[in-house]
């Protein structure tokens, strides 16, 4: 039984980190289509960092750094150059996929995977200590958004940037910080993936960033509800793993659960102001 519990949490860990990044970014008004790229960059940085330094925590730091660097590109494109957020997001995801494979081949002469990283050894039931941080990501973000001055500003620039400007808040500065923080949080999830697998392999995030984005929408941009959505999606996946070959639930069905629920959430929320009002709109 505890096997099942920890498997559930291990599967949820990358979703929780990436979704935390998604909530932070979107609450500030920047569409988080780049979560997949942040995760992949985080995994890549963590594996290479841990290989280069022999230290798993330095690897985690490198993963966070790599993902934050990608986030900085996103912020520069959308905030400095006012690029379309969706187009930039798609381009960055492609860029990270190509760049990680390219560096992997140049450094390790393989397009498939990096050498093995010792990392946190067996890592315990949660895969690695990073797993515990992942569980804390969304509660911590809830506290940040609900209880701190910075959190209030993030919500302000996401809902009413003009009003925030009038109140003397630098919208661009708050959004920059939110996007960088978004990259850092998602990068932590990527580091978890790489250290749990003891290596980086190309495309290893396999769409987890998009499932996390679905969780953000299903959780209505609220950190705690989003955490619930991540745990729900992970529970469906855990059950699917346990029931494969024995039960009559086709795996196609369990795979579509996150997306189906997201569509249901979007449809039923129509007409209600759920998304941050300024989401995706360039600052005028």
């Amino acid at each position: 039984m505890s096997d099942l519990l920890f498997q559930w949490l291990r599967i949820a860990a990358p979703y929780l980190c990436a979704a935390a990044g998604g909530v932070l970014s979107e609450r500030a008004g920047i569409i988080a289509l780049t979560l997949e790229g942040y995760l992949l960059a985080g995994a890549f940085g963590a594996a290479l960092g841990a290989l280069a330094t022999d230290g798993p925590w330095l690897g985690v730091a490198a993963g966070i750094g790599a993902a934050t660097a990608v986030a900085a590109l996103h912020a520069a494109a959308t905030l400095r150059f006012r690029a379309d957020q969706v187009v930039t997001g798609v381009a960055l995801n492609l860029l990270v996929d190509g760049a990680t494979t390219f560096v992997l081949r140049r450094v390790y002469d393989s397009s498939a995977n990096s050498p093995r990283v010792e990392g946190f050894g067996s890592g315990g039931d949660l895969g690695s200590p990073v797993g515990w941080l992942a569980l804390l990501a969304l509660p911590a973000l809830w506290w940040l958004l609900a209880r701190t001055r910075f959190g209030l500003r993030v919500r302000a620039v996401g809902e009413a940037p003009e009003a925030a400007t009038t109140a003397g808040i630098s919208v661009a500065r708050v959004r920059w910080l939110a996007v960088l923080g978004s990259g850092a949080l998602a990068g932590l999830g990527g580091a978890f993936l790489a250290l749990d697998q003891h290596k980086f392999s190309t495309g290893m995030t396999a769409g987890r960033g998009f499932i996390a984005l679905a969780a953000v929408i299903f959780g209505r941009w609220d950190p705690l509800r989003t955490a619930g959505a991540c745990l729900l999606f992970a529970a469906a996946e855990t059950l699917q793993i346990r029931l494969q070959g024995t039960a009559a639930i086709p795996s196609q069905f369990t795979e579509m659960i996150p997306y189906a629920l997201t569509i249901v959430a979007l449809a039923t929320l129509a007409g209600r102001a759920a998304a941050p009002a300024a989401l995706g709109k360039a600052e005028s």
Partner: protein
Amino acid sequence: MRNVVVFVAILLAAHLAMLALGPGDAGASGEGVRVGVVFDVGGRGDKSFNDGAWQGADQARRDLGARVRFIEPGEGTDREAGLRLLAAEGMDLVVGVGFIFTDDLLQLAAEYPDTRFAGVDFAVPTDSLGRPRPLPPNLVALKFREEEGSFLVGALAALAGGSRTVGFVGGMESPLIRKFEAGYAAGVKHVCPSCEVLSAYAGVTPAAFRNPGKGKELALSQYGRGARVIYHASGSTGLGVFEAARAVRGLAIGVDADQYPEAPGFVLTSMVKGIDAAVFDAIRRVRDGTFAGGVRQFGLAERGVGFVDDANNRALIPDPVRRRLAALRDSIIAGRIVVPST
């Protein structure tokens, strides 16, 4: 708005540059057969079937003086463009590596009747009654009887694993991967009718071949339910299966190439496909003028599939088991055992 366009253009250009700047094709100049090879996703260095095709073409370059040009399409780019480029350049033989090229090869073979095409793992189309359609005379499908090799490693898993439960982890649910599973399960049941085979797939999209996290959890689940040996046919998702084998000190069986280096001591064997030999053979036939369209099957008899038994894993395979496997192999080649492929 101009800034937007410039920025996105820079990003896309950087992306394309990264893809294109990979290790280039080594000189397609001089005499000899002109061969173009288009890789599947992953490309050179995947330590699996792309590398197998590369080895075959490289051997043809050394032994036959073939002039080989390689193209690696990136993620999400138009694969057909690579094949079309090579065909338009007037190559003698264009090779598409991976079943993903099936439709493109059929189309191009009709458009370029003077160019010969070869498809590794080509999925021969069938008509409404399930009969294979004839291929154009300038297209050869290089297919492997994966079920035969999988049968042998299934028998090995049941005989040498020390458990009545064995596992299988597949990548994307598809007829190709079902073939591995069917042969494996048949091999298990042949030597141990009461054994149970746990089967799981990582997903229903191509991403299921690149999801080691899912592979590890699927494998941990199967080890937890009593499996001692797990066979994977799942691309880099299988890297997670090897990690799970390490974690619980169980055994895993690799696929396509010898995967012993992924987890030394925890790899029972690997079911290997002779993609290098098949590609080399296709190039040699073009040079000798004996190229013929149609389906070419590589099974145990042609040494197109098999399993690894070398210094690394010899200690894991007891001698009586080795003799039993040799007998099974002979029975399959002689047709006394017919291995199911679905």
